């Protein structure tokens, strides 16, 4: 009966991968390619959540989602959208999507740095050649930047998937404790609840083995899907 709860992990994985990769890629390209003067400032600020403890991040976001005084609801009220305000972490439908935002918020910094490092390693002559050939900035991004940083993107996606499968229970445990009504359990927090709250150690160990098998399978599938010949120009 616990299986359908365990399936929730993929939701977090998919949304986190898309959210983090799109934002991190955008920020990395913007900060390296577009010659913005205050880029070092942004780089420091965006890396900031990465040095905070995940527990502190989780609790900070619990405050933000707090129904009566949190930023989200009072912000919606301020904009005159009171109908949209709701107890974010207290509703079964919205609790899990609400967990995605803090994870993205906390995760972007590292991948931004990885992608920025990759982009600044691309030789400038490729862009000059592309410009002479009349490629727009948009085309340059798709045809030059993206293929050349594909290995790093691949590593980042794998890393996000693995850390989400193995590590996202911390934020779940801190922010919702798996609730309301067990609707936000991912596998790690479910293991904790079964083994150390309800003392079903055998069942907990089974979940642990499931986690190992599932992450191995996921990594293998991803490796297979994202294989591509190394691009060289």
């Amino acid at each position, binding site marked *: 009966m616990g299986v359908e709860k365990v399936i929730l992990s993929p939701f977090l994985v998919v949304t986190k991968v898309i959210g983090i990769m799109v934002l991190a890629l955008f*920020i990395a390209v913007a900060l390296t390619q577009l010659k*913005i003067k205050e880029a070092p400032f*942004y780089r420091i*600020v965006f890396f900031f959540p990465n040095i905070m*403890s995940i527990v*502190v991040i989780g609790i900070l976001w619990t405050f933000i989602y707090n129904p009566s*005084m949190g*930023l989200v609801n009072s912000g919606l009220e301020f904009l005159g959208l009171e109908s949209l305000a709701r107890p974010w972490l207290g509703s079964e439908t919205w609790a899990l999507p609400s967990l995605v935002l803090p994870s993205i918020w906390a995760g972007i910094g590292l991948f931004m740095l990885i992608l920025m490092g990759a982009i600044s390693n691309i030789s400038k002559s490729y862009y000059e050649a592309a410009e002479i050939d009349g490629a727009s900035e948009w085309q340059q991004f798709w045809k030059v930047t993206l293929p050349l940083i594909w290995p790093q993107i691949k590593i980042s996606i794998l890393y996000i998937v693995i850390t989400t499968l193995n590590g996202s229970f911390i934020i779940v445990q*801190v922010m919702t404790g798996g609730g309301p009504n067990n609707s936000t359990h991912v596998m790690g927090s479910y293991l904790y609840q079964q083994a150390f709250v309800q003392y079903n150690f055998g069942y907990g160990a089974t979940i*642990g083995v499931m986690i190992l098998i599932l992450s191995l399978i996921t990594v293998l599938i991803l490796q297979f899907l994202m294989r591509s010949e190394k691009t060289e120009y």
Partner: protein
Amino acid sequence: MKKSVGQILGRTGIRIPLILWTVAVLYPIFWMFLGSFKSNAEIYRNPWGFPETWNWQNYAEAWTNFNIDTSVFNSLIVTVLGAALTLVLAIPTSYAIERMNFRGSKFLFTLYVSAMMIPMVLGWIPLFFLLSEINLLDNIYGLAIVYAVSQLPFSIFVLTSFISTIPKSLEEAAAIDGMSPYRILWKIITPLSMSGIITVTIMNAIQFWNEYFMALIFLQSQENYTLALAIDFISSEAEYTNAWAHYLRVLLSPSFL
């Protein structure tokens, strides 16, 4: 060459999302900082604005009321002890794996590296029983040992690559001068791989300082709580007593340590 209007617009347009994200990152932290100066009633009345009075002395109050001093001390012990233990175990191991070509040293290295891939989640239940068997459950020294061992594969992985960059001739010269392998390790290898050792120690210390889940499982009594646990405990406490303001004050302290 003049820039076209479109290009200038594009340059400004690109900044809008960047600035929005900056706000999204900084504002919650700033909000937490402001909130820590407010009283409870004020947080509910006026969650957005600046506090009416800046109560500094409440920081001291929060520090003593919630036993934060004990948990900071516990966290310090666990972090220092764990990091030290990791080094004591990792430096000789990585030196042996890298330089002493004994039977199975390659295999041992592969074993250590593949241990990095195994999620820590799997270790919880066996470790729980192991610790309770040897009476180290609910004991910060036991936790420090678990931490040290859990970061050992990573530390060995990094240190081996640092040690492999040290030229072999230095060791050979020392050996000709009559140094024993242990003195070589202590007098030559350790000082020369100092930058690697410092990197590993910093990363381990951050990891130990912030670790939450193993502490949650292996520590049970409140006077043994590490900082991360204490914060979470107070947070569930605050839900019932409405001590939000106190609690925000507590929250600020570890995030910047």
